[in-house]
């Protein structure tokens, strides 16, 4: 630690105004403040300053994402070996390493493109590098299917960082969740790579690991997600890639096709605990998303439907399949795009849950509704805040006037 500090102090003059590498000032600054809490202090008045600045907060979210990421990697390998029928012969490490190699390029592409744009903008506007992309860059690979091509991820990430973040003024000013805008762009621009039943299972072997499934050597497997199966099928029974039915327990464990990070409820809940204990995410939003979703799912289930099997899914299943958990824990709680008032957080979360299930049940086009529900409510976050702040102001005014 000490050596690192000394090294940074030694190379710092090169990056300052007039130094050899002053063109990379913002990059250096970004790394320095990422590694060490900056010791700048306010010059006027009395301030109490926490050392947990936003770079440290972001790091907590990234740490909370690691269980979902590791499980996602294992699941990618698991699905590949399962479909190929060689799961028995493969060791745990083989399966995991294959998944690791399949997911890693997506993480690298997402960070390279996103941070590249952020660094360029920061350098260009002579500002400090904004740290918001630390989390978005990790979220993006977790919410895409494994077979989504890298160049598409690069295009979508660039689109989201520029149009959802930089033009609003950078980190902290964006109206919409950047990672979700990336996904929405992918979803509407390249629907064949984001939905259907051929993108959820990795099909190519990497460095001799995994199995080549692309050239028809293996057939007779269904790669659709649980929600995709229910939306197009005639029963609520969900099967794994080989056609064996899976129950609620399997959905909670999460060894089934889906976006990389979204399948395992357990891994996501570990992340949720980390977020809640460290105080980074707000429990009010999280709980109310689940309550809203559960109530609405229960209602649809009670009404029932002959033609649309999504209505007949149990509420527990609704909460466990698809991106519901992932969205509730990591997306809805984003402090920038959710309301600030505590009452507002309840309303915001509740409506996300309600809208997500309504979209799942009532639209014929796509099986998943969490993404659009959160984006829709992001739009209303400021309005919700305004209503509650105004209500409080009026209440206090009344109290004052009635004295």
């Amino acid at each position, binding site marked *: 630690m000490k050596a690192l500090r000394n090294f940074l102090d030694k190379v710092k003059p090169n990056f300052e105004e007039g130094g050899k590498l002053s063109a990379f000032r913002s990059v250096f600054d970004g790394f320095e403040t990422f590694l060490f809490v900056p010791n700048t202090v306010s010059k006027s008045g009395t301030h109490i300053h926490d050392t947990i600045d936003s770079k440290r907060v972001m790091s907590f979210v990234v740490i909370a994402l690691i269980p979902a990421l590791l499980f996602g990697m294992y699941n990618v390998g698991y699905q590949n070996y399962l479909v190929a029928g060689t799961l028995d012969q493969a060791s745990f490490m083989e399966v995991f390493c294959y998944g690791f190699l399949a997911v890693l390029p997506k993480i690298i592409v997402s960070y390279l493109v996103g941070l590249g744009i952020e660094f360029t903008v920061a350098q260009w506007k002579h500002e400090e590098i904004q740290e918001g992309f630390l989390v978005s860059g990790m979220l993006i690979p977790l919410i895409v299917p494994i077979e989504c091509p890298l160049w598409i991820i690069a295009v979508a990430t660039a689109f989201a960082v520029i149009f959802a973040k930089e033009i609003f003024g950078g980190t902290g000013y964006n109206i919409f969740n950047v990672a979700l805008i990336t996904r929405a762009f992918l979803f509407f621009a390249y*629907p064949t790579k984001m939905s259907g039943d051929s993108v959820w299972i990795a099909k190519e072997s990497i460095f001799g690991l995994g199995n080549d499934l692309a050239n028809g050597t293996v057939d007779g497997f269904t790669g659709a997600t649980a929600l995709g199966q229910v939306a197009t099928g005639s029963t609520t029974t969900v099967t794994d890639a080989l056609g064996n039915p899976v129950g609620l327990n399997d959905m909670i464990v999460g060894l089934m096709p889906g976006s990389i990070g979204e399948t395992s409820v357990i891994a996501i809940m570990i992340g949720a605990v980390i977020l809640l204990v460290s105080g980074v995410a707000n429990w009010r939003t999280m709980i109310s998303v689940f309550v809203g979703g559960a109530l609405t799912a229960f209602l649809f289930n009670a009404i029932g439907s002959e033609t649309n099997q999504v209505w007949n899914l149990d509420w527990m299943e609704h909460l466990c399949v698809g991106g519901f958990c992932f969205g509730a824990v990591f997306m809805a709680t984003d402090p920038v795009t959710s309301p600030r008032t505590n009452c507002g957080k309840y309303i915001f979360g509740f409506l996300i849950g309600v809208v997500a299930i309504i979209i799942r049940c009532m639209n014929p086009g796509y099986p998943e509704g969490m993404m659009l529900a959160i984006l829709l409510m992001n739009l209303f976050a400021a309005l919700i805040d305004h209503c509650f702040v105004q209500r409080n102001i009026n209440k206090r005014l009344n109290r004052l006037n009635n004295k």
Partner: protein
Amino acid sequence: MSNLKETFLTPLGLNNPVAVQVLGICSALAVTAQLEPAIVMGLSVTIILALANVVISLLRNTIPNRIRIIVQLVVVATLVTIVSEVLKAFAYDVSVALSVYVGLIITNCILMGRLEAFAMANGPVDSLVDGIGNGLGYAIILVIVAFIRELFGAGTLFGFQIIPDCLYEAGYMNCGLMLMPPMALIILGCIIWAMRAKNPELQEK
């Protein structure tokens, strides 16, 4: 003469009806998924605007002030009907592609704006030049937006494939979002952004 030149050129650049005055956005989003309808739409608006400007400019001293909007509407509606019929007769496919948007030229803000602001106060020659200038200013933006949308959304221009097959085989895909109106709005926003960045006098304080 320099005055006429200015009347013609400012709508193409610094006083562009779409990019600077932000008028006629609705049709600019609706008809720009392909290049051909966009060009036909741009030309239709140019012709209608030029002729309407001339007619209103000739009548401007005889129109009672209180009913001038109705008179303007009647003139524009007549011209729109003629253009619509001509399109149906000679370019049926395009007229189907444009569907209601030819008829809706009547409600295009650019027309009413130019008639009220220019033709009611200037002579027929000036008005003709102003109409052509504004119509072409509208058409230019439409063509730019449609060029980007058709190239990246369908890989074609005027219906001919531009992006080679080898790119598709290498994994390239058309961007479906380009064919949807939201992307047209974003492209339009980028054009406005570029214009304002280049001409600081356009930026509001």
